[in-house]
């Protein structure tokens, strides 16, 4: 009996060693969990392992390359779990020049840009601009050289769009808005996946909206909402597009119709999708304001402050509006709390000035 156990352990160890010495492709949703082997070909749309049919790049969560530095493995892990500061620390330890495998090298370059970008999105307003610039520099370098044939290429370009959009919002810079749309458009044209195209349309519409180009945004939102595509990811975009349309309608004075649309989105949205719900309650608050319903407006913004406050930009608006609403309701202490919180998040928030 003992011998049999020992043999099993040895076999497992051998197997695990064998796995560790090959490239491993991990998939979104863990289905299949992963595939291992030698990567024979890689392009922005597909990754091929020896003896296997090519995998579509959009299905891949990440790839662990044979012989890659340990710090890259750790950094990637942190990055994908949203711990960007730690990830940046780990990735910094990797000497890019020491990586022989060009795909692993590109992977390292990509994740550096990826971390800077995501870290910037959640950073305090004071440091955001600098971080965005760093992210842009890294991602541009990736797109322009090592990443040309990498499966991260579209993601990198999309991130470049997000970075440009964030910069544009900071400075109300028309050129950056244009740059963001250009990146989204490039991905939309080159990526063969319908959901990705829809996502890019979504982001383009949001960029138009942020720039104040309401007509362009509304038209795109409508197009997305009417899309024949199906699936959970697509549904989320449709929901967001509907919210975009509702926002435009509310601003056009049709608050009643807009609220009905927002309600539909809330009913259809998975409660875990906090980003969509935050957007929904924001639009709901705006609709209530247009309709002169201050109590409803307050409740909508409170939903954001209490339950869906992950998006700083939306949270800022909600807090700014809440401070005003509480003041108007003679709830000075609550107004003060909201304002202090807003000031802590971003001392330069435009909502403090209104």
């Amino acid at each position: 009996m003992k011998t049999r156990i020992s043999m099993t352990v040895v076999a497992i160890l051998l197997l695990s060693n064998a796995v560790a010495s090959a490239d491993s492709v991990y998939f979104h949703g863990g289905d299949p969990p992963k595939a291992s082997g030698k990567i024979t070909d890689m392009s922005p749309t597909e990754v091929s392992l020896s003896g296997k049919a090519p995998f579509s790049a959009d299905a891949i969560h990440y790839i662990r390359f044979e012989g890659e530095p340990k710090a890259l493995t750790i950094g990637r892990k942190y990055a994908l779990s949203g711990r960007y500061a730690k990830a940046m620390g780990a990735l910094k330890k990797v000497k890019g020049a020491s990586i022989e495998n060009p795909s692993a090298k590109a992977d390292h370059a990509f994740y550096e840009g990826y971390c800077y970008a995501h870290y910037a999105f959640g950073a305090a307003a004071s440091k955001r601009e600098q971080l965005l610039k760093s992210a842009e520099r890294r991602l541009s370098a990736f797109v322009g050289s090592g990443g040309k044939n990498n499966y991260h290429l579209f993601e990198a370009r999309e991130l470049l769009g997000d970075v440009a959009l964030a910069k544009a919002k900071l400075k109300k810079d028309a050129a950056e808005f244009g740059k963001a749309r250009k990146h989204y458009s490039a991905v939309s044209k080159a990526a063969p996946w319908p959901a990705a195209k829809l996502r890019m349309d979504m982001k383009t519409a949001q960029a138009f909206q942020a720039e104040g180009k309401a007509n362009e945004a509304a038209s795109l939102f409508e197009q997305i909402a009417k899309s024949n595509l199906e699936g959970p990811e697509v549904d989320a975009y449709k929901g967001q597009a509907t919210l975009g349309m509702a926002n435009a309608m509310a601003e056009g004075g049709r608050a009643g119709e807009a609220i009905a649309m927002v309600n539909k989105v809330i009913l259809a949205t998975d409660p875990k999708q906090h980003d969509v719900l935050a957007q929904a309650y924001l639009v709901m608050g705006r609709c209530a304001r247009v309709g002169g319903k201050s109590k409803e407006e307050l409740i909508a913004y409170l939903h954001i402050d209490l339950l869906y406050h992950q998006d700083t930009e939306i949270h800022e608006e909600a807090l700014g509006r809440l401070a005003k609403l509480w003041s108007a309701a003679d709830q000075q202490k609550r107004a003060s709390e909201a304002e202090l919180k807003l000031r802590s998040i971003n001392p330069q928030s435009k909502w403090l000035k209104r």
Partner: protein
Amino acid sequence: MRHLRISPILWGVVLFAIALTPAASSSAGEDVDAFLQALYKRNYFDTALEYIDQLKTSPLVDEDTKKAIPLLHARTEQYQARAIPDARLADKEAAFRKAIASYLAFTKSQPNHPRAVQSLVDVGAIYRQMAKARTESEGASVAEARGFLKQSEASYAAAIKKLKGSLQALIANPPNPDQVDVSVVRTAINAQLVGAEFELAEVAFDTANTYKEGDAERKRQLGIAAERFEEFFDDHGDLVIGMQAIVRAGQCYRDMGNIAFALSCFESILDDPDLARLKVLRPLRLETIIEAMVLWTRQIKEAKKYSKALPIFERAFRISELRGKKEDLQQDPRALSVLYQRAKLAATMANRIKAIRLRDIQKRYRELIEYATETFKMIAETEGKHQTDAIAAFKKIAPIYKEVTGDDPGKPKDPGPGKLETFADILKESRKSYQRWTTTLGAIAEASGAEKAELEKKSVEQLETIDGLLRMALDKSDADTSLSDLSDVYSRMAIVYWYQKRYPEAAVVGEHLARRYPEAMSARTSADIALKSWNKMYETTKQAGGDIAFEQSQIVALGMYVSERWSDSNEAADALYRMIAFALEKNDLDAGLSYLARMPETAPHYPSSQLILGRRVWRKHQKLRYEYQKKNAAFQKQKANLDEAAIAEAEAELATMKAQLPELIAKVEPMLSQGLAASAPNPRLTYDALFLAELFTLTNRPEKAVKWLENNSFGPLKLLDENAAIITQQQGMPTSIYRTGLQSYAKLLAAIDADAFPAARTRFDDLMVKLKASANNPALVTSTYHLAGKIIEENIAKRAEAGDEAAAARLTEAFKHILVEISSDKDASHPMLFWVARSLRGLGAASQALADNASLDRASRDAHKKQAAKSYGDAAKAYESLAKKARGFRLSENQVIAINLALAECQLGMEEYGQAITTIQKVLDKKPNYISAQLTAAKALQLSGSYKEAILGKGEKKRGSSRRPIWGWRALASKVDGDANYQDAFFEASLSAITCMTKLGRAGDAKSLSAAKRTLRNFKIQQPTLGGPKWKPLFEAAEADLK
């Protein structure tokens, strides 16, 4: 008393499924329950009630949730009532009654709702809470409390009855298993039933506690409670709540004085080793230990012999042993209670064995004293229920410890404020702590070394305490909290954060107070703290080489606010001063000036702000002036090649630039003058004084310039005389100061009278020497001399024109000194040497003119003549120097010819005629037909007394030429006759020829005399005007001389 035997298999933890299930459904749309819970957490009950009202028409919730709205309403009211402090008993009870009414309305309107029965349980709970509030309130009626408990009992009883009825109905008429899972329903009803029955027993226990100890009714009620708990345990002993019931029963027996029964109940939990291993039962087990320990301690005290007490102690100590880290135990109030009881137990046992003189027992005694002392001390240092008692116990046991061990156990650390519940209490405590901290802060200022370090450590701890208290106060504040109290909290927070070096927090809180509550007394101070905090962050970021734009903009925005809000305050002035610095850092001079305009003139920083800005404005002026001069020079050079439009454009641009210069001066002058006048004298002001002196020099106010340059405290020239490091260590600075000084003095010399002149002249000469000694670049020295010379030259002319010959003469002396200095400079440039030579020659000519002035007396004329010779001599040296360096200067042939011609003229002035002729011959070798040279040559011959050669020329005629190399007056006159360009040369040559002939005639040459007469006669016929007003008098004089 029976002993428990509980099957481990049944130790499942039964949750009160229905009671804990959210009243509202969260599956569809809005997450009502999560939102309500979040609102409760913030005490936003009013908003929660409004929200619940909105749900009635909301499309985001399903019908089940809508049906539960009255229940949600009641629950919210219940929580709202619970949050009202006991001190406001009437309000609290009214709110509870409202909640009860809502619950009852719900059960009445929807008797078949799944949560209808639970509402009765909730009502029972509310009555219990009301009774508790009554019992705990001072002066409240106990009878009322009992009334509430009766109503609570009735509610629970009604609920139990209904639940039992539901169970029976379920058994009698089971629903279709395809539609309803009967087991789930039964479990849910059972769970509610269990809860209600337990609560019913609790009500009896509560009722007993409304009576005083020893009261018969109390004992009776305790008996009822004990019986209910035991019955409950019999029915549900396999549940956690069942075990809780047996502990409760033990407490009842304890209060009834039946220690044995009580301990029997407690031990049924404590003796089971399997139960001890279950983590889920740890809280209950700890509570049971605490209860049992009290009784065991009592038993030890009451035991007649120590041998009887010892086994009780051993057992109690073993059962109550806790494992875990000290910090964890300190944080769990139950664990702390157990430790306290163990210490008490140890102290009691020690007391029992103290007198027994056996070695082992004495060893044990010592161990127990040590344990009890250390444990009491630890609890005395930990905030919690037993803290006060532990302090007292420690005080009692500490001497014993010292006696037994010989060591001092020390004192427990500051126990802290104890339990604080209301905003007012917390704020009061925070103010006390704050006061203590300010005392420490004062002591730090006076302390040093180890004492200081100790105090600083104490300060850090005190700040942490205050921080905790203030945050607690904020949590406890509500709509009734006064704004002054709230702003007091914020203000202290900002100060605490500042001293804790938590600058981001200090900035945010300080700014919040300043903007949100500007009327508050501390708003201004808080704004100042915020500004300083932003400034600290700015400095840190800057030091790290980071982007400082954010911090800068924060400071500017807040500074603007402060300066607008409290315009006359020192804080506003401080803010503006900082903003000026930032504006200048960004080269935004206009912004800086606008900030200065906002600053009160009485502000301490006002003079320094004026100086900082004044310097910048002056630099701007100097830069603009330089650019203007450069552009103007370029324009003048190119003007001829430009079309009209381009000229107009360039002229407009130059005019705009020029117009700005006086505007800038108008700005700078008051800033620097007032800034300097209002500042305490300090060598650092020397640069401001220098700039101001430059300004006054430029605007021709040399007295003022010199006043600042020579200021005793910070005058740049004065400091240079003293070799002050502030100047000498700045490379190039001395030279720059001397340059300004020389220019100022050059202008001053022209402006002052004879009495003041000698001293100024001495200083001027002194500065010339010092400049030369200080400068590394000789060209700079020469150019400065040149500049000073130009100034004086200009003023000589002005004085002379004004008829102030004496002043002109004084200036001329100074001017000559400069010219000589320049000419002796081997590094002087050729234009400068030209100017020097020309100027000296001019001075020579001027002196010569005076020497020739017949109206002057002989001595004066001689003196002028001497001066003329000297000036011509100096000029000649300058020309010779130029001639020598002609190649080095890359001078053209024409320039060299001009130099030699001028040199010849100087030599004539020096009466060195032979030398002059030699010089002029060099010119004529190159340019034989050069009229000016021929004129000079003829003049030289005439002056040397060679009248004949002067008339007829000198030298051998070359082949084919009708003239000698030096033409002489006659040939010269003939050559230029009729040439409009040489009219003067013609008349001069003609006149000089007559003069020479006359001279020859006087010397006895009659032919020459008659020739002179004849020539003059003919000339008069040919030129009846005799050359007009310039020449006619000379011809007439010559004619008179002939006669």
